[in-house]
């Protein structure tokens, strides 16, 4: 038989030859060594790649060379036995020549090549068949055994692996089970319909149910009347799969009816496909914390001295009353302040004061507190009574009377019999259109009224009074800015010489063009300005403005220019800076002092201390004219008049009015005499006389007849812009 086409490479042959020479020592082996080498090489060529064996090519050849020897021995041993071939088959399997093609080629090779290579006698072909059979049988037996072993091994491995995996799972599940069972936090599992499936000991303990009792119930059975609406909205979102977890604070009712507060965390468990499968609740009992919070909250909301609700709680309840009110609901507040408490506190000590407050608190609580009514101490000696859903103002008045009566009986604190009273501000109104802040502020204002009106009484909020006060307040607060913003302006009314009708002067009259209230006459704000002291800067502004105008007239009309007459308020007249202000303004505007007349009321001049008079004297000395405004309405000390630095009397319009009437009742005669007397008096003192309120030509003529010097009034001109004076003066010319 021919060798494979590519033949046996030279190096291998040499190598094998060396190995064979070293390894084979049998006589037959030596004799037939070359043939066996050649067979082993052919064998290796035939089987290489048919099985995986962990050997290099050389090692394969060496291995097969050994097997070739054993085959040869089997073939030649007498008596013949094929057992060795059987072992060769087994050895092949042992070396992992396990591919089916390996056996096929080996058997074929034994038939084709072995006799040739070993010089086997052709006469004994049965031996070869027996050899092949034994080899195949040994191979099959070993392979079967190996296969069974390996199958057994891999099955065993599967068993072990599966057992370990299951054990790991059991351990893992046991651990989770332990976490679940022994957790301090309550845990429960329910299906998506809310049926409770399992709960741990903590949860059972927390709820006071057995597992059997709990698993008969549904999650929705644990709805609590006072749950926030959001709790069950979140729950619905959870069980519908819209939300994967939520965390809320929630009340639960225990089996014994006790309410526990909890932090509840609910989570959705989804299966591998993402479908909601279970819901898990983790519930932490925070009742103790909640009670503590309640206590802290109680402390935060109550007055420690009287135990009454404090301002914070009152405001909270007030806000709630508004929040929960129906449209037709009304609300009432009695804001109460003890009269003269400070005296008691200061004279008898804080301790007595405190005891008194406690006693007052008790009396108020006793006579007022009821559902819908709250008595609170909101600071110092101030208490407030909230009346939710009052039916009418009569309700709060009745309560106020009741409270005042209750406080009438003296209060005994230690050895002191203390008689006290209280002032109460009442507000009662429909909730619609008002706010908690509104009623609080109005109650505060009303209490102030009650105090101002005299103590130990109540006052009821009066929106009109309030509006007036608010307007006054608004005016007084906005006045400084209004000066700066130029909201004030001056009108001028001519002062006319009666004998020839010549305009000789002009009285400056201040107006306020208020952005909110419109055009305001001086009576709306001068008194207020006097109260607040704003009159000083305002008066200074008027003076400067008027002088500025006087300067314009001075420039335009020269000697015919009218003097300017400016009103000076009482407070202004007492301002230490008055003289300096006037001097500076005159200097700044360049107006001659003689062209300035300052009008003061009788009361401003009479019966005052010396200082204002000194100022007036200084002004007079500068050349400034001083006029007494509205003369005849006050109680002027006529004797004193001669000592005053006065140049002009302005007779009040009320006297002048009488001169207008036709002489049916004769009153005009009296007025005419009075005016005449005043004029005589003035002239006797060297003073000029101006009549105010001249409305008719008849009046003007009569005043002129009487000897009055000047007139002022609608007959000549109403107060108006300076241009009107310009116009008159221009016309005359």
């Amino acid at each position: 038989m021919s060798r494979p086409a590519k033949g046996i490479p030279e190096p291998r042959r040499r190598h094998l030859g060396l190995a064979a020479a070293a390894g084979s020592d049998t006589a037959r082996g030596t004799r037939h060594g070359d043939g066996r080498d050649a067979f082993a090489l052919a064998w290796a060529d035939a089987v290489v790649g048919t099985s995986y064996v962990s050997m290099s090519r050389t090692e394969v050849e060496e291995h097969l060379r050994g097997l070739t020897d054993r085959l040869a021995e089997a073939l030649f041993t007498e008596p013949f036995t094929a057992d060795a071939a059987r072992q060769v088959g087994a050895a092949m399997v042992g070396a992992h020549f396990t591919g089916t093609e390996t056996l096929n080629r080996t058997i074929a090779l034994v038939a084709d090549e072995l006799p040739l290579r070993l010089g086997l006698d052709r006469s004994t072909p049965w031996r070869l068949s027996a050899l092949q059979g034994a080899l195949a049988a040994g191979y099959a037996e070993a392979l079967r055994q190996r296969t069974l072993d390996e199958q057994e091994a891999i099955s065993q491995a599967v068993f072990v692996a599966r057992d370990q995996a299951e054990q790991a799972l059991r351990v893992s599940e046991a651990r989770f089970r332990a976490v679940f069972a022994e957790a301090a936090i309550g845990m429960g599992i329910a299906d998506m319909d809310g049926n409770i499936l399992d709960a741990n000991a903590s949860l059972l303990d927390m709820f006071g149910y057995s597992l059997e009792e709990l698993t008969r119930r549904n999650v929705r059975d644990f709805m609590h009347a006072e749950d926030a609406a959001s709790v069950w909205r979140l729950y619905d979102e959870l069980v519908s799969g819209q939300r994967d977890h939520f965390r809320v604070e929630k009340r639960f009712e225990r089996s014994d009816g006790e309410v526990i507060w909890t932090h509840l965390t609910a989570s959705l468990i989804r299966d591998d496909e993402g479908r909601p499968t279970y819901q898990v609740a983790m519930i932490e009992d925070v009742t103790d914390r909640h009670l503590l919070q309640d206590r802290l909250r109680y402390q935060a909301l109550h007055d420690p001295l009287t135990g009454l609700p404090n301002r914070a709680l009152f405001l909270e309840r007030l806000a709630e009353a508004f929040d929960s009110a129906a449209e037709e609901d009304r609300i009432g507040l009695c804001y109460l302040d003890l009269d003269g408490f400070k005296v008691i506190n200061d004279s008898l000590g804080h301790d007595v004061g405190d005891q008194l407050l406690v006693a007052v608190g008790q009396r108020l609580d006793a006579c007022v507190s009821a559902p819908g009514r709250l008595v609170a101490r909101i600071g110092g000696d101030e208490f407030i009574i909230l009346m939710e859903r009052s039916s009418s103002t009569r309700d709060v008045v009745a309560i106020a009377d009741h409270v005042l009566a209750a406080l009438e009986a003296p209060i005994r604190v230690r050895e002191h019999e203390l008689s006290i009273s209280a002032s109460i501000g009442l507000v009662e109104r429909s909730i619609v259109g008002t706010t908690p802040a509104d009623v609080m502020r109005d109650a505060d204002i009303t209490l102030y009224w009650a105090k101002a009106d005299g103590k130990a009484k109540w006052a009821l909020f009066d929106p009109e009074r309030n509006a007036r006060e608010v307007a006054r307040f608004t005016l007084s607060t906005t006045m400084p800015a209004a000066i700066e913003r130029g909201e004030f302006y001056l009108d001028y009314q001519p002062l006319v010489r009666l004998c020839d009708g010549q305009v000789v002067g002009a009285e400056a009259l201040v107006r306020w063009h208020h952005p909110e209230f419109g055009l305001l006459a001086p009576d709306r704000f001068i008194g207020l300005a006097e109260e607040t002291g704003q009159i000083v800067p305002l008066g200074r502004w008027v003076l400067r403005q008027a002088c500025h105008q006087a300067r314009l007239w001075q420039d335009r009309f020269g000697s015919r220019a009218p003097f300017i007459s400016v009103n000076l308020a009482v407070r202004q007249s007492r301002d230490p800076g008055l003289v300096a202000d006037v001097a500076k303004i005159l200097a700044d505007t360049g107006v001659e002092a003689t062209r300035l007349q300052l009008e003061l009321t009788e009361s401003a001049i009479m019966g005052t201390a010396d200082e204002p008079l000194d100022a007036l004297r200084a002004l007079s000395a500068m050349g400034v004219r001083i006029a007494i405004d509205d003369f005849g309405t006050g109680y002027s000390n006529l004797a004193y008049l001669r000592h005053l630095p006065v140049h002009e009397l302005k007779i009040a319009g009320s006297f002048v009015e009488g001169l207008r009437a036709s002489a049916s009742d004769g009153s005009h005669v009296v007025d005419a005499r009075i005016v005449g007397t005043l004029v005589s008096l003035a002239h006797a003192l060297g003073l000029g006389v101006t009549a105010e309120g001249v409305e008719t030509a008849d009046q003007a003529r009569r005043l002129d007849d009487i000897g009055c010097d000047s007139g002022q009034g609608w007959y000549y001109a109403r107060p108006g812009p300076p241009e009107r004076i310009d116009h008159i003066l221009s016309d005359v010319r």
Partner: protein
Amino acid sequence: MERPSWAPADIDLDRPSAARVYDYYLGGSHNFAVDREMAEQAIALWPNLPLIMQANRAFLRRAVRYCVDQGIRQFLDIGSGIPTVGNVHEVAQEADPRCRVLYVDFDPVAVAHSRAILAGNERADIVHADLRKPEDIVGSPQFGRLIEPQRPMAVLMVAVLHFIDDADDPVRLVARYRDLLAPGSYLVLSHATQDGQPDKVEDHQKLYARTRTPMHMRSRAEVGALFTGFELVDPGIVYLPQWRPESSDDVDEHPERYTGYAAVGRKP
């Protein structure tokens, strides 16, 4: 026993296992019908597969012997599979009985079988771990017992990294092992490639998609990148039979039929 989070809770014998399929290719019987069915389908598609697997196994043997010759006495065989003929510890310990071998696999059946095979071998053991988590391997008691990290070792990643998705960044993964190695250590690596046989790759990858370990073939350049930080020993990256063949006959005329690259690198 701790069940690693990635390990299956159940041994699924309805799915073929790459380790058992490999065993079948090598003529072993450590496999089940489902494995053999898949192997036969693969072979029908790609008749060379058994030869390729044998070539891969032969490379492993040659590389281990090479490492022993270089003085390496500790081996970390990652993705060792079902112990079958020519296991690393057999090859290495035949060369020097003092060699220590730690196997790593994440097929629980392969691990259980390995444990059975290795029972009584003081110098070989197996760790049930995912090669994507080197820390699990290094942190195992077996590693502590068998491996001295301060001394050079050979890390074997033979026919395993093609089971690692690009998303798991095999280059970075190998680098993490590299950083653990003492200088003078070796990386022994073989990897399936589409180079040379592109037409059959897709179907083959589809077959492996059935296993827990889908296959990702890589190009020569991609395999080269895995050796970042290593010096390739001769002959570099070659087809499986071409890596230091024991005789010229072992390499046939079409080594590209062996659709796998083999290489050994040394950490300087």
